[in-house]
């Protein structure tokens, strides 16, 4: 079941020439290490661009979004796999 959140989260990410790659994020008091980025895509909301990353820690799927203009990360959704 997918739970939609859109909540601000702290994320550790690496910035490479090919873009930004999230490595871990904080959720419910835990530091969650990202095992795999399964998909990524861009979404436009008005003039703002959000970079989405579907990531998994091995058991749960998360949708993280990064808004470059504000340098902010959100946890958009959580789904048990």
């Amino acid at each position: 079941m997918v739970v939609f959140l859109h909540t601000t989260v702290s994320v550790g990410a690496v910035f490479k020439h090919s873009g930004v790659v999230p490595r871990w994020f904080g959720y419910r008091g835990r530091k969650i290490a990202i095992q795999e980025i399964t998909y990524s895509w861009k979404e436009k909301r008005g003039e703002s661009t959000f970079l989405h990353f579907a990531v998994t820690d091995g058991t749960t799927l998360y949708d993280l979004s990064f808004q470059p203009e504000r340098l902010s990360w959100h946890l958009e959704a959580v789904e048990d796999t």
Partner: protein
Amino acid sequence: MAHRTIIHIDMDAFFASVEQQCNPGLRGKPIGVVGRGGRTVVTTASYEARARGVKTGMNKVEAKRCCPDIIFVETNNARYTDTCAQFVCLCRQFTPLVEVFSVDEVFLDVTGSLRLFGSAQAIARQIQQKIFHTFGLTCSAGIGPNKLIAKLGSGLHKPNGLVEIPRGAVPELLENLPVGALCGIGRKTEQKLAQMGITTCGRLGRTDPGVLRQRFGIIGELLFHMGRGEDDGPVVPLEETPAPKSVGHSMTLKRDITCRGLIAFHLLRLSEMVGRRTRNSGFSGKTVALTIRYKDFSTFTKRRSVSAPIRETRDIYHAAKNILSSIRLDQAVRLLGLSLSNLVGEPRQLPLFPDAQRRRDVTRAMDAVNNKFGDFTLTWANLRLLEERAGIISPAWRPDGVRKIVF
């Protein structure tokens, strides 16, 4: 026309494949991508679901009956449209002549690229490898002397297929091929051709074009050429796509309704969607068309032209309401569609009355807010009562221009 080499790339079970790539828990399982809301159909089924008989267009009950363990996944249009935009860019590495046929299909004219990249097969294989490496998705490729044959080829060996049909092999391939296998010949045309005793492309290509013109009008000539595998339609890149003839939106209602007041709410939403896209594209229009589909799926469209071009939401809404008031609703309404056609450029005439100028200023201000923060951030109070719906990606969607809808 000089000999051409055309490639058709068709993503395999596109939406379903994207969802399976996103969620490892769905890989290898039968899934159906559906719209939001209860009354929705399967827009794409995974190959695992297709093997169990699930087809595009089935409602959820039918799909469950074929495949009891099917998993329904709600559509995420932003994922698919962004992936499309990216794989179009990828194809442009091989030729500037890339035509977006739909959200999951492109044509490439590689006639001028062969010297640089070797062969069409080499180009197609590289595209398949790059798409797999970038997205984890597979696609099928068809290579032919024109768009019709290239598209036929990509469908012959799916998924992850690559079929080249040389010019000389076309007559033999088409001889016994059912006419319905050709892109552009739908069920109704297929039935009409069958009534004439024409069921194969070979037979179609040998039929007197005059007889076909008599039966089908101007497209009879086109059908004759299609039967012979002839198609001199160019590959049209996005920047050369002709301007649209209309701007429209439609929506399937959550439940069938008879109340005219409720129908008017939905018309206001459609008017705002049509109006915004028309204004953002620098057009206005003179003809408003209202489409109604009843619960028994019978559908009709009524049009009305206005004296001066319009683009304001209120003007489109009033025109739509006038059309609605002239219709006697025989049944509950399942679907509403609204479009503005007879398009012209932005109106240059300044409004004569202060009221009209004020309304135009309000529209401009609303558009500015919605352009910055997203559609319906600021909207008509009535529309707050309506639930948001995730639209289906129209076959006319394109990654740029007036046909680009942001989901």
